């Protein structure tokens, strides 16, 4: 599939996962991500893979736990309420140092919320979600092509650092269609996993997949080792896009779909002579702190735009560290901010309105 094809975000994630060598998918349907599962259901049986619709999200994530422990490239996907159900399993997977990819196509919450797009799971994705001292690596694509590219990358990062990786998109990204291309990828060269429970064949010690450490000294050692890997991830895997920040008076901060709306607003404001830039975090964890530190030296103010009541804005404030004011504008509950709303906010901050 090297030519351009037209795909929904959800389908593109599924195809990208398959091309990255994922042969095990465990999930449970929920709007607006069901097409991930539907595509897997159609395709996996044809290529010798496993698609399994579990009886609940809780069992789906525990099947992921099992498959990851056995060394498989494995994925699950859901939308906000379903991801909440999976949190216990995600914490266990992180605790057992296992790689897997988790898709969250976010809808309005809390509770059952609604089925329209939202970004109100930022806290859950980046600040734990489940219990214990752990992080997920969190990728936030802003186009269908980027969903493809980051899905492929997510499997590599998961394997390299033995960590669960989340791809977070909103319902709009899951449902909309855009042209994409797939770079053919060598799936034969998957990394060795000497820790996996693949059978000793009488030739080695048992591998044990476990997150239970009753001796506190052992548990602390395990957590500190993981922390070391997190430090390496922070050093190597941070991704962001920065546009027009060098001369910007006002810097918009947005991820995913909202960043495309912000870019649109930025173009209009630039035409009106207002110097606006955009920082788009692509990894939400680790957060791209350095570009904020750098930009805060020259900018007058930051404006975080989100489909939430203000979640990423807290990380922006930490990164800017008081160097200049950080404002927030958000719509929530499935409402999507418009370019005009963002333009108005920038003008208010700049004292133009």
């Amino acid at each position: 599939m090297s030519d351009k094809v037209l795909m929904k975000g959800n389908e593109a994630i599924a195809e990208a996962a398959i091309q990255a060598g994922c042969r095990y998918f465990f999930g449970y349907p929920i709007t607006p991500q069901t097409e991930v599962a539907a595509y897997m259901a159609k395709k996996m049986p044809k290529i010798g893979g496993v698609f399994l619709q579990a009886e609940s999200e809780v069992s789906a994530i525990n099947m992921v736990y099992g498959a990851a422990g056995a060394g498989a490239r494995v994925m699950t996907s859901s939308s906000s309420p379903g991801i909440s159900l999976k949190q216990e399993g995600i914490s266990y997977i992180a605790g057992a140092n296992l790689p897997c990819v988790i898709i969250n196509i976010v809808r309005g919450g809390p509770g059952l919320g609604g089925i329209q797009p939202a970004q109100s799971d930022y806290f859950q994705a980046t600040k734990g979600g489940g219990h214990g001292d752990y992080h997920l690596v969190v990728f936030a694509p802003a186009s269908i092509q980027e969903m493809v590219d980051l899905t492929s990358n997510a499997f590599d990062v998961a394997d390299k650092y033995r960590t669960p990786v989340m791809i977070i998109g909103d319902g709009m990204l899951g449902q909309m269609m855009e042209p994409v291309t797939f770079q053919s990828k060598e799936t034969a060269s998957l990394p060795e996993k000497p820790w996996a429970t693949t059978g000793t064949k009488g030739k080695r010690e048992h591998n044990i997949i476990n997150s239970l450490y009753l001796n506190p000294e052992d548990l602390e050692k395990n957590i500190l080792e993981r922390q070391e890997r997190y430090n390496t991830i922070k050093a190597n895997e941070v991704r962001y896009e920065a546009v027009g920040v060098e001369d910007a008076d006002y810097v918009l901060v947005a991820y995913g779909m909202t960043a495309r709306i912000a870019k649109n607003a930025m173009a209009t404001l630039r035409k009106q002579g207002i110097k606006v830039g955009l920082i788009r975090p692509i990894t939400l964890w680790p957060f791209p702190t350095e570009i904020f530190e750098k930009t805060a030296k020259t900018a007058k103010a930051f404006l975080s735009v989100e489909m939430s009541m203000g979640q990423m804005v807290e990380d922006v404030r930490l990164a800017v560290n008081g160097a200049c004011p950080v404002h927030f504008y958000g719509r929530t509950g499935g409402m999507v901010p418009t370019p005009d709303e963002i333009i108005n906010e920038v003008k208010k901050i700049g004292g133009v309105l």
Partner: protein
Amino acid sequence: MSDARIYIFTGHFGSGKTEVAVNFAMNLAKQGKKTAIVDLDIVNPYFRTKDAEKPLTQQGVRVIAPEYANTNVDMPTLPSDILSVFADKDLSVVFDVGGDDDGATALGPYFSYFSKEDYKMYLVINTNRPLTQTSGDIIDYMHDIEAASRLKIHALVNNTNLSYSTEAVNLTQGQAVLDEVSRQTGIQTELVSVQKSLIDKLDPALKDKAFGLDLYLQIPWL
């Protein structure tokens, strides 16, 4: 455009059925026909006929949509006033059906009505969609949709596109695949649907079938 009273648009999930069906209904209304469009999509949660309700209503097209369409209630129900379109014989009706055989199942309850009068069923195809790139795949979809709906597909719509990256050559490439489908099934391409700005650039061989589209379901700020 032929002169049936009932037009049914089916196709693979994401083939562009809704955009084609909405434009088709607009054209009928512009010709002065009393027109209704029925949103029978039980598959898609976003990008639905109801998103184009305003221009449709302005053109005089009656929009019959499930009670819960676009209300955030994730419930695939069928419109309660749908039967009225079978009673009013002066009405031209466009059915926008959900994708694949799953979507076509929604036609099932109305089989007895469709079998009593002439209808015309189109299969909308975009050969840039990954699962309908070959004539073999398309013919499989055709059979699945016909089996699920118990209705017969009469004509093909070449709706090959890459959203905002579409070029005229995409439709030429798509037509080659559709022509192979026609050779194998005897079902011909009747419409080549393309955004109006590209009609002039179309391959001359496709121009007489060109069906110009205004895009009602695109997100304006993309």
